[in-house]
């Protein structure tokens, strides 16, 4: 297992509803990532299809595994790279039950998927209208260590990153489609989640304009000490590469031992209080 490797943040814009065009772009950026010696390339939330899709989601969603995961597996295999991207998933058991899903693929094929747990359905968002929330956090064993996946609004809920970290993820990948008014929240929360969990956080956000919504980009890799290792431009396509070195966690954990000092008994109280909000 590699403990030190490069991560590429592929901050792309998408063609709404055009999977072929988006797959071409994913391939181009995967090739570029490999040229930069990256072992992992990360794309935004719903990067297979674009974010604002509304009723078209029913037509565009695919099973996992399915044709698009096969296409991404092919890219990963050919270029010997790990890829994280987002897509609308349709359940294997029903015909129109959808999930907003992050997929991780490696050189040996499909590794796993994470279904977004917190679906924003307020302000400009209408995710719960279309998607069913996931019920499991996502931590996956890879040649790059255990990698955790979360999606966008999940980062507002510290318990998701906490559980992901407690399940062994030292790198938490957050794929996102965040419109511009929320920039300051994400810039704070990416650092907070990294610091409070002493983990690496790789955040990759969408850019471009979809139905008047502008996505702000600002992708970043944050170290376990909260330092921004590398960051992308605002508002335009960008590509950045940063290094993850798990050894750094060993240096920061004794200084900020948040995991050692966890108080599990509080979680029960938290559950009770949340149920009675």
């Amino acid at each position, binding site marked *: 297992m590699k403990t030190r490797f490069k991560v590429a943040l592929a901050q792309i814009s998408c063609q*709404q*509803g055009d999977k072929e065009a988006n797959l071409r772009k994913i391939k181009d950026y995967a090739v570029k990532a490999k040229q930069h010696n990256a072992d992992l390339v990360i794309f935004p939330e719903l990067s297979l299809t*674009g974010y*604002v*899709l*509304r*009723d*078209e989601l029913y037509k565009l969603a695919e099973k996992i595994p399915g044709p698009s995961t096969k296409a991404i597996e092919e890219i990963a295999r050919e270029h010997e790279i790990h890829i994280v991207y987002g897509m609308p998933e349709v359940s294997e058991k029903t015909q129109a039950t959808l999930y907003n899903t992050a997929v991780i693929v490696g050189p040996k094929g499909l590794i796993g998927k994470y279904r977004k747990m917190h679906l924003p359905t307020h302000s400009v968002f209408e995710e719960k209208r279309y998607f069913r929330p996931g019920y499991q956090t996502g931590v996956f064993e890879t040649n790059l260590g255990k990698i955790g996946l979360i999606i966008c609004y999940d980062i507002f809920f510290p318990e998701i990153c906490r559980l992901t970290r407690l399940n062994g993820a030292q790198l938490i990948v957050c794929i996102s489609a965040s419109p*511009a008014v929320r920039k300051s929240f994400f810039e704070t929360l990416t650092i907070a989640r990294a610091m409070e969990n002493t983990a690496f956080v790789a955040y990759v956000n969408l850019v*471009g*304009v*979809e*139905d*008047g919504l*502008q996505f702000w980009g600002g992708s970043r890799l944050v170290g376990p000490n909260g330092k921004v290792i590398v960051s992308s431009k605002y*508002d335009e396509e960008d590509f950045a590469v940063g290094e993850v070195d798990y050894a750094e966690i060993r240096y920061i954990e004794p200084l900020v031992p948040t995991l050692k000092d966890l108080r599990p008994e509080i979680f029960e109280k938290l559950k009770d209080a949340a149920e009675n909000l």
Partner: protein
Amino acid sequence: MKLAPEVLELDWEEVKNKVARFIRDYVEKAKAKGIVLGLSGGVDSSTAAALSAIAIGGDKVLGLVLPERETYSPREVKHAKLVAEKFGIKTETIDITPTLKTIQKTIPVFDPEDKLCKGNLKARTRMLYIYYYANKLNLIVCGSSDKSETMIGYFTKWGDVAADIAPLMDLYKTQVRKLAKHIGVPDEIVDKPPSPMLWPGQTAEEEIGVKYELLDLILYGLEHFMKTDEIAEQLNIERELVERIEKRWKSMEHKRRLPQTTKIQYRTVGFDFRLPQT
């Protein structure tokens, strides 16, 4: 939240870039050749025109100056041409008086004393001209409506509001003025009292009954779910004024929507036929 003029402050350079990016993206995705818009000489259309020029280049923006005899103002025509010249925008000037006269003559119930109906006819006639150019020359119609006027319904339904894009619709009037100054719209355009020019001597603030500086703060409070009492207290104004504005905002929703229908079938336009615009 404290309702004070500062809440309306934005990073104007960022707003400029955002609006320009939106316009450019829309024109590119539509595969259009450029933009056409009505140039009245007022701050809203001057700002929309300037931002269009910043976004795609003035040579791809056509400003239609569409005066008519009753409200003709050399100052307004001069201002329209001033902003066009400054931002390198092409213009075409067409006197719409003969068209208006013909329409008025052929409407059996036309009432020359009803200035509102007569005024709305002018705005809708301008819309016909603008859309002809759009249609003929493959141009996108850029509207100039701001957030203040859109919220209180201070516009002509299917008239001045008719457009393919409305890049200023999320900015209050006082914010449009600040953005206008930031991007270099001449002060004489920004600082004059706004008027829809539907009849002689009409000014927006007199008709609405409140200055934009105050209106925008009331609307900002309503936008942020503040209660009328809270807004009135903070702004030190009568609650009735806030209630009047709130009532106007809500009662004008019909002007901001497609025609309402009643649901009969599986998926219905305006209810649950929800498609992205691609």
